[in-house]
């Protein structure tokens, strides 16, 4: 446990000094706040939570995926991961440490998004839970990208298409019904639907089933990538 905590503490200190990682964590909630206050609230045609649901699902699909891939690939490239593993940190402890840290940040972002959307009590909890589940799926996919990339450049190139699809498809789906039907198989589309009306039961079981299926696929991709990769290299 101390090794997982050591990795998390290291990651917190590093993130605070790494604009490339820090900015995406902060950017989406800030944009959501600005758009909600300046566009959604004054507009009679838009629900107050319009931009919150767009940016929350975008955040869930994009930020954890890109950041996990960037963190792991940087550690591989700079050989600091090799040093950790040679110092008795097991690969799974490292991945839990980094993944847990990213998940905590996503949960904190979920609280911020929820508050911007004026949710409280059970609704706020449900909002955060939905975002955390979505972030977990992105973390699995980001980990797969990270472990299969030997450097940050490769990880960025590989992560970006996945992140763009996961992050932006729900927004495009809002404007095209056919696209929306196809997008239903994607976990971020289900997140988007759930966070847009968090009070409604919203066929939650089916939606979580789709997210679970996505996670299962990502887990298999991760296991395949992990077995192929040599994290000590």
């Amino acid at each position: 446990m101390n090794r997982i905590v050591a990795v998390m503490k290291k990651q917190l200190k590093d993130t605070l000094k790494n604009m490339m990682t820090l900015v995406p964590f902060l950017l989406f909630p800030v944009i959501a706040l600005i758009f909600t206050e300046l566009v959604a609230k004054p507009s009679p045609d838009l629900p107050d939570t319009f931009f919150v649901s767009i940016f929350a699902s975008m955040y869930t699909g994009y930020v954890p995926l890109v950041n996990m891939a960037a963190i792991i690939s940087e550690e591989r490239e700079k050989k600091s991961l090799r040093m950790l593993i040679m110092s008795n940190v097991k690969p799974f402890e490292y991945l839990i440490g980094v993944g847990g840290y990213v998940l905590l940040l996503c949960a904190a972002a979920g609280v911020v998004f929820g508050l911007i959307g004026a949710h409280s009590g059970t609704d706020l909890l449900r909002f955060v839970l939905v975002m955390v589940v979505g972030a977990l799926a992105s973390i699995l996919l980001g980990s797969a990208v990270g472990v299969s990339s030997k450097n940050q450049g490769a990880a960025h190139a590989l992560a970006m298409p996945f992140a763009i699809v996961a992050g932006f498809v729900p927004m495009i789906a809002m404007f095209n019904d056919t696209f929306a039907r196809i997008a239903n198989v994607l976990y971020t589309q289900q997140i988007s639907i759930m966070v847009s009306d968090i009070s409604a039961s919203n066929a939650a079981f089916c939606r979580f089933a789709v997210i679970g299926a996505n996670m299962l696929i990502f887990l298999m991709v991760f296991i395949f990538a992990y077995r192929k990769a040599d994290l000590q290299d």
Partner: protein
Amino acid sequence: MMASVIAMEHIQKSFAGRMVLDDVNCSVEECEIFGLLGPSGAGKTTIINILIGQLKANGGAASLFGIGCGNLTEEVHAKIGMVLDESGLYSRLNCYDNLAVFADIFRVPKTRIKEVLARVKLEDAIKKPVSKLSRGMSQRLVLARAILHSPKLLFLDEPTSGLDPSTMLEIHNLLLECRKNGTTIFLTTHNMDEAAKLCDNVALLNEGVIVEYGEPDALCRKHNTAKTVKLLLKSGQYIELPCDGTAAKPIADYLAGNMVESIHSSEPDLETVFIKLAGRGLE
């Protein structure tokens, strides 16, 4: 009898059909500084990687503290400190935070961090980010990380490569101090002066084969084929005499005449020994 901290028997390793290590044998005893000398590409780093369990040998057996290198336990890893070919430092974190990560991992008290930073003379750079350190300072920080948990065995892969003489001297002193405190040191280098100064035993590695093994002084004496003494006279003239009874009288005469500036023996240095055995230099 002291137990071997490191033992290698008939180690073989090949990459893509090319043999890079062939029948490597050696052992390193407790509190010994052992030097593996060889030019770049001789197989030094491959040996370290096999010993720390990162590479599997194709043949032979290697062990640390009696445990096979393919099955090193957490306990064995906790006894090892390493300075490898790449620093693995966190460039955005400062010196203290870099060591704090490993202090947490090894459950070392935080007071130890300042202690080791002082030992490598980085106490003034404690809050300096690694990205702002000079190469010498970075290397000292890597060494501080390696000794943070007071390891019983240190692996040092070219620890002073590319460093200025004063930093090199500081690192040498630190290594001698570590040895005095009971640490066994396995060091690779192509700096023969470093090996001659620090090591109790050296192995000369050429193209994956240990061509010579023993104490540096003994190796130089063994390969002293010239067997002569050289006298530098105060006039600037060099006189070379055979190293036998016939030289006794002339030497005594020069000394009696107060003509001698210095007397030199003709033992080769380690690099000359290596060139003689391998047919090429260490650089």
